């Protein structure tokens, strides 16, 4: 009984603050990352050769470097060349750029899978290339890319725990501090793990719902699980 009271009074408020911080990290990173992914994905398929090249290099490095290395680069590396970032800013930038690179891959693959006739048909109606890409090709590609993008959002929820490693104290960080302070590692990390499970499950459910909503016949949709 004491245990429960202790958890309610001492631990819960702190962890909730951690959850809030995690959400403040995840949501902007997801939005920026998705946006970066769409732009660089389009560049890689329909861009000017130079842009294609640049977008390709971006994806190569940001998918190839471990996320933790990237975070260290932003947080510990940049100050050495005169750029100072707060832990929060370093984490959001790191997450956005890394997940943008993954999104980019899914968008690219989906764009390439759209039948060639679609672009020709758009041209034949007098669409410009940019218009055709944004109003004909992307809407089709997005439906195919969404399972991949969705998985990426779910990964982001889990990888947000790495922000703690650059001293941005979110859920994992709070848990770690509490566990060290009260010397209750098992209980507190179990609770922290359970909170992540809940967040991931809610996101999975939401994405499945979203996909059902935008589904149209002829575009098969694999389920997340």
């Amino acid at each position: 009984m004491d245990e429960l009271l202790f958890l309610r009074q001492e631990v819960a408020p702190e962890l909730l603050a951690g959850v809030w911080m995690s959400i403040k990290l995840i949501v902007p990173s997801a939005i920026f990352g998705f946006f970066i992914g769409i732009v660089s994905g389009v560049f890689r398929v329909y861009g000017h050769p130079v842009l294609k090249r640049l977008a390709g290099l971006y994806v190569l490095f940001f998918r190839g470097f471990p996320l933790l290395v990237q975070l260290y680069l932003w947080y510990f590396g940049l100050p050495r060349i005169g750029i100072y970032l707060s832990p929060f800013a370093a984490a959001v930038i790191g997450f956005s750029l890394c997940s943008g690179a993954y999104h980019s891959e899914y968008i690219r693959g989906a764009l390439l899978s759209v039948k060639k006739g679609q672009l020709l048909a758009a041209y034949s109606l007098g669409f410009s290339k940019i218009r055709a890409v944004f109003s004909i090709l992307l809407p089709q590609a997005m439906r195919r890319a969404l399972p991949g993008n969705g998985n990426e959002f779910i990964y982001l929820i889990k990888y947000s725990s790495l922000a703690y490693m650059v001293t941005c104290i979110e859920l994992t960080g709070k848990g770690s501090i509490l566990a060290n302070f009260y010397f209750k590692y098992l209980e507190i990390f179990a609770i922290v793990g359970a909170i992540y499970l809940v967040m991931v499950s809610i996101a999975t459910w939401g994405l499945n719902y979203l996909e059902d909503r935008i589904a149209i016949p002829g575009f098969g949709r694999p389920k997340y699980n």
Partner: protein
Amino acid sequence: MLQGFIVISENLPYILGGIWVTLTVVVGALIMGLSLGLVLSVAQVYGSRVVRRTVGVYVWFFRGIPLLVLLFLFYFGILANLQIELSPFIVSIIVLGLISSAYQSQIIRGAILSLPEGQLKAARSIGMSDSKAIVFVILPQAIRLSIPGWTNEYTIILKDSAVTYALGVTEILARSRHVAERTYQHFWIYILAGCIFLLLTYVGTKLFQILEEKVRTPGYTQ
């Protein structure tokens, strides 16, 4: 900058020594993940309702919790409470292996489910028991189909293995951090560390491609 490169090159052998540690963790986790994943996938496809559900919960658990939290939970929480003393190195392999088994089980399960139903029927029609059919007919095909998935899994675990630094495993990132703290060359050293991972990804992917080509059934495309 020139001075930076001199400092880095002096410390290069120490950082590169981390490759061996990283690869041991990664390969250990992949092998553990494969053996467990095989069992889990077969259980999830062919098992009873209860078994299937249990595997489902296992997969949900290990795919839903961040690696960092699982490392802390196992190392500081579970193992300490059970008074089992294992090195961070071993715990890292186990935790990465458990996570990987959850992902690999889904890769193999997908491969099993993608095989035509007739394969199992044909095996039964010549009198094979189900367990024989799974071992001699289903898994040899499913494993071949799983190789592209493993390639992916390798690159993910390779990058995730950097997180084991949080427990104090002296892999590539840990050593880089160490050198960076001493030399103040954080920027270039982390770029170097990233490039080492990039190189390992490249080499590993190539090796898997060779493997895939080697075990490919002639004429078979899916």
